[in-house]
């Protein structure tokens, strides 16, 4: 008995977490998947009816907006955050004397809750008293900057706030990547007389391909999950112009009482995330085993 315990302690220690993950992650995903195939409304029903919820979902104009927004928001957010992050990292890599302080300033938004970020930008961008009013106060009477309340532009305010929050983090990732490139290769290039910008484009940036991938994965993951920022900044409005799948799902689950729609939209979100993350994780785990 004691010997059995001794031999199986590692397994016993792992068991609670293993069971928890099986139930609360995989079991719950299965539950949501199941319910997304039923006619559940206010209460879950368990008779499978096929894909009616998905049909309803893709027939819904609100979902169409939310899903479309995800791609507009996601693309702009990821591309701009990566470009900005890389640019800042390269600028900071030039022997800047105050690097530590500047890095701290660029990165601090990542420590804040998206609710705080949203609240701050909501105030800054509000047309009545914020930026617009300020510039008009300077004498530019016709200046307008009312994206926050413009259904066609409001989504860009979310992009702006999200970039403000996350680009410093991308910079930190890239900076770490720049510093990890083998110094001897760079020295060799310098001895060969290759100009600095060529050293970056031809040697350093290609060597950082894994970091680009990581940054992309993290940012796309953030984009699909972003919920707090929309709630705090626009509340999904005006109307539902800035809805994202995350807010759509929440509205269906907790204010509309439409469990079927909530479940099916959650499943679509998961499919989007997994179509990005699974190949990445799979290759990561495989390269580790091999």
């Amino acid at each position, binding site marked *: 008995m004691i010997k059995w315990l001794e031999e199986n*302690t*590692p*397994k016993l220690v792992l068991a*609670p*977490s*293993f069971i928890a*993950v*099986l139930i*609360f*992650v*995989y*079991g*719950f*995903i299965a*539950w*949501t998947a199941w319910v997304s195939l039923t006619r559940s409304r206010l209460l*879950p029903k368990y008779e499978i009816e096929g894909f009616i919820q998905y049909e309803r979902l893709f027939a819904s104009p609100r979902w169409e907006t939310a899903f479309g927004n995800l791609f507009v928001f996601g693309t702009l957010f990821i591309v701009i955050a990566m470009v900005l992050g890389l640019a*800042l990292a390269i*600028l900071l890599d*030039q*022997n*800047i004397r105050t690097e530590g302080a500047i890095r*701290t300033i660029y*990165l*601090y*938004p*990542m*420590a*804040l809750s*998206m*609710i*705080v970020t949203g*609240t*701050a930008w909501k105030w*800054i961008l509000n047309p009545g*008293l914020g930026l617009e009013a*300020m510039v008009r*106060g300077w004498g530019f009477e016709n200046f307008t900057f009312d994206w926050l309340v413009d259904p066609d532009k409001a989504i860009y305010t979310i992009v702006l706030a999200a970039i403000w929050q996350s680009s410093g*983090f991308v910079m*930190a*990732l890239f900076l*770490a990547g720049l*510093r990890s490139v083998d*110094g001897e290769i*760079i*020295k060799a290039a*310098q001895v060969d007389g290759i100009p600095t910008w060529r*050293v970056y484009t031809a040697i350093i940036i290609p060597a950082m391909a894994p*970091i680009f991938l*990581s*940054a992309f994965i*993290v940012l796309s993951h953030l984009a*699909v*999950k972003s919920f*707090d920022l929309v709630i705090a900044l626009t509340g999904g409005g005006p109307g539902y112009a800035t809805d994202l*799948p995350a807010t759509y799902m*929440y509205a269906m689950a907790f204010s509309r009482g439409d469990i079927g729609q909530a479940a099916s939209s959650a499943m679509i979100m*998961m499919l989007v995330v997994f179509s990005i993350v699974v190949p990445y*994780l799979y290759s*990561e785990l495989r390269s580790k085993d091999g």
Partner: protein
Amino acid sequence: MVDLSLAQTPHQAEGRTGRLILRWMLYILLLLFALFYLLPLFVMLTTSLKSLEEIRTGDLIALPRDVTFAAWRTAWSEACTGIQCEGVRPFFWNSVLIAIPAVVISTLLGAMNGYVVAQWNFRGANLFFSLMLFGCFIPFQVVLLPMARVLGLIGMAGTIPGLIFVHVIYGLGFTTLFFRNYYVSIPSELTKAAKVDGAGFFRIFWSIFLPLSLPIIVVTVIWQFTQIWNDFLFGVSFSQAGTQPVTVALNNIVNSTTGIKAYNVDMAAAIIAGLPTLLVYVIAGKYFVRGLTAGSVKG
């Protein structure tokens, strides 16, 4: 770090002034970006110190003429979140009550899990780790509905223990990942030597691994604390009037439709809600960054 300025030394003569100008442009550019990142914090702070009157008549980025802490007092103990008008104070303490146990428990479990996966490899340990890793990446929306029902079934719906439970469960993936990646870099010969010395599973963990773990514990605690303190989705989904965390309360204050909009109070409340994680960042920034990069760069 690589000194790339070396590469430019060949063309000296006309290069000197050119380089100086470039250098200045570089610093100015960096400064402009610093302003971009600092602006919202600055605006929040100045707005919170102004009276409503001054906000209405003044400039967004102007410094307050008369500094007043009235808005802070209101935000802390009087502002209304829906029908309740006690400020963010009770919710701030809710967040503390949720975050501390959740951070401690998930870190401890993560340390044990990471130790097993990294050092006591057995058939199935890798499967466990892969399952955990995939679990880190699910959008939580996919577990909201069943979790709400399960919390109801076990009588934890709308309670603080319920929220602690949720944060522990969905924090485990990352804490396990952190510790596993840290422990996997410790040579397995150390475990073998301790086994030959006669130490068992817990003894090895306690005497050898735990004393080595301070850096990763700091990273994990900071990561978990930031995640849990800043959480909104679980807070808004699984809490009720008395148990909401501070992020939910902040959102309620900002979006409460009753009365006139008190922007200064909103900003003060936002700063209060952001202060703990901001402090952590300022005090232990190095570890904060390490957690961010470790959590995302390497699986």
